[in-house]
């Protein structure tokens, strides 16, 4: 309540302008504001922007929203999401109990993919363990193994894999086959090397560090959530407390009111981009291979998408509670269909095409490409173009709706 009263004081624009701007330049500390000031002397825009900056700085909750949730989310996603297939529990029932069978068990477990789970006594017990999910894979070496090997027959090893987690099961399956195969080739007498030898090199992320994939995606997600929420709550608050009417009585036009709201938010959200980049660099050592300038420019472009979404929300919702609830409806599909968590390439074809209509998907592609691939506009232009189209559409529609609601 106190806020609205004080806001009223800074509202009479024009006349009081010469006084606040000096302080305002210092307050926001951004050259943007200062150069705009030189350009817009005498316009109500400046006074309004100043009012917004003051209001934001006074609003502890908003500052909290800008810093705390993004950092937590980046950290959580970066650390917790890890597709590594390592230390899977492997049960072994070795009925053969010979030197070679023990060698096979050793070669299955001496890497980091499988660790031996000692609790399996019989084939039936092994089956139960797989069923209960206590072990991911079970290997049964039959009693006549040694005999088959000595006769030169193909000896079989039975492998049971818990298929509940389809992805892990697939990778575990691949590993077991490769290990058994190389074991078989190295059996005495060792077979000559296989004629075709695929040599796999991983580009961009040779160590396959999972956070390098998830953190750039999360930068996009965090930016979407924060920018839409912050901008919508800044707008809807005026509607909520009824101060929007007071603003309308001033000589400022609707466009100026909006612009004055957008500029300080934009500066703050750029700060968020830097924060996210800092976390990515310091905590996760995500490489930055492309151009920083391009990254910041395109992030700026994307912030306008977020602000556009937020303004749209604000025109739909009647009060702050509704904003938060409605943002669920919009942000959830945006995020899940963006490739931040599950890669877009893995989604069904129809959803993949649909994801072209998702601005976040374009932004995440841009972030990953700049950070990891180190490519520039020559590759990214279709995504930049798409983002620009979204900015234009979102801002036009929401400004139009906002104006209509004003009159």
């Amino acid at each position, binding site marked *: 309540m106190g806020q609205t009263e004080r806001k009223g004081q800074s509202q009479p624009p024009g006349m009081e302008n010469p006084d606040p701007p000096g302080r305002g330049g210092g307050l926001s500390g951004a050259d943007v504001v200062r150069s705009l000031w030189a350009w817009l002397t005498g316009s109500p825009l400046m006074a309004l922007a100043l009012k917004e900056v003051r209001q934001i700085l006074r609003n502890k909750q908003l500052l909290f929203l800008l810093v705390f949730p993004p950092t937590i989310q980046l950290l959580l996603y970066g650390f917790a999401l890890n*597709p590594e297939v390592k230390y899977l529990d492997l049960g072994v029932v070795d009925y053969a109990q010979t030197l070679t069978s023990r060698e096979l068990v050793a070669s299955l477990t001496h890497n980091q993919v499988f660790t031996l789970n000692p609790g399996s006594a019989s084939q039936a017990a092994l089956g139960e363990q797989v069923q209960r999910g206590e072990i991911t894979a079970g290997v049964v070496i039959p009693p006549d193994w040694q005999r088959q090997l000595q006769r030169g027959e193909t000896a079989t*090893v039975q492998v049971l894999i*818990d298929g509940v987690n389809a992805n892990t099961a697939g990778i575990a399956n691949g590993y077991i086959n490769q290990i058994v195969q190389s074991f078989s080739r190295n059996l005495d007498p060792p077979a000559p090397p296989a004629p*075709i030898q695929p040599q796999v090199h991983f580009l961009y992320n040779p160590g396959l560090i999972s956070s390098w994939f998830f953190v750039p995606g999360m930068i996009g997600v965090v930016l979407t959530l924060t920018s839409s929420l912050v901008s919508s709550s800044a707008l809807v608050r005026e509607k909520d407390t009824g101060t929007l009417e007071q603003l309308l009585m001033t000589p400022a036009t609707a466009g100026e009111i909006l612009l004055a709201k957008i500029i300080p938010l934009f500066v703050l959200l750029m700060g968020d981009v830097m924060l996210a980049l800092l976390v990515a660099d310091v905590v996760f050592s995500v490489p930055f291979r492309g151009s920083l300038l391009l990254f910041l420019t395109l992030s700026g472009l994307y912030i306008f998408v977020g602000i556009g979404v937020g303004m749209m929300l604000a025109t739909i919702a009647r009060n702050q509670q509704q904003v938060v609830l409605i943002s669920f409806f919009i942000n959830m599909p945006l995020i899940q269909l963006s490739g931040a968590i599950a890669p877009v390439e893995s989604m069904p074809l129809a959803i993949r095409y649909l994801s072209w209509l998702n601005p976040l998907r374009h932004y995440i592609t841009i972030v990953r490409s700049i950070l990891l691939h180190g490519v520039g506009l020559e590759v990214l232009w279709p995504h930049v173009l798409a983002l620009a189209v979204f900015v234009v559409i979102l801002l036009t529609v929401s400004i139009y709706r906002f104006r209509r609601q004003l009159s």
Partner: protein
Amino acid sequence: MQRILAQCRKELAQFRRDRLTVALALILPVATLLIFGYAIRLESKHIPLAIQDWDQSWLSRAYIEQLFATNQFAPVRRAGDEDAIAVIDRGHAKATVVIPPDFSRRVEAKLPSPVQVLVDGSDVNNARVIRNSIRATTNYFMRVNDLLPGSERVVARVRLWFNPGRRESLFIVPGVYAVVLAVFPALLSAIAMVREKEQGTILQVYASDLRPVEWVLGKGLAYFLVGQLESVLVLTGAMGLFGLRLVGDPTPLLVGNTVFVSASVLFGLLIGSRASNQGAAVQAVALISFLTALLLSGFIYPISNIPFPLSLIAWVVPARYFMEITRDAFVRGTGWAGVWPAELALMGLALLFLRAVLLATQRMQLKD
């Protein structure tokens, strides 16, 4: 008892009146199921794969054909001057296979011939899938064409249990079921709780002779019922759209479902009694319930991959235990023998939340 029921009726009436909340309660869970269920796929099919064949022999062509024979890879047309890495740089292909010029000569001479495979490592999971898949296909190709010197002496006969076709939906959808029930009942009850404080109606509650336990239980019961409705909706969707079927004994799921929805509602009440306004409450639920259910529950990747300090938090995430129960009920089918520890853990957590809510409401009373 009667006062609890009255409180519950009042809460439901209030719930019905707010169209937005009703939509939130009934549409969002189904939407979440659809989006998560269809969109979260970890393994790519039809991965764009570029080929650079410097050999151009029948053998190299047969090898390439073999690579594309499964639905794992889809060929990418390259512009003539594009080199192997540029096509990955541009994102047109996820991997390039470079076949050297003396490929067929060396293979026929039984000499090892390296085939270079460049894989885009930025999508870590699929990079592994691509590597395994190319190695497996290569081995198959050599075996079929009798290129492997020496007979194979040991082979692994692999059987995938529960999910032989490796349908990812069998893993993801039971998980989504748990995520939905972790988030939405909590969200609704948190909003209902904090609204009393925000609108000042909590003073009326103080003034009445309603005891805090009755008040909390009445509110909880109302949202428990809503949560059960949500679980029926999501269950219908999971069975109708994703073809999930209950395998084995349904009682662990029934019990687990009841306990889990209660835990979720109680957690919402807890957040609601601590938050200062609805926005903060929703934010808190979204951040805590949603993120823990999504990230610290084994929903996407195994819990064992979570690094140490975070893995401690995973122990008190109810969704983690409920996910074990749903996956067992829909895929594994071991019944009580397999899931009783998870059920016990859930009950423990639910009681813990109840205790915390009662404490928190007492504090709410003292403050004013």
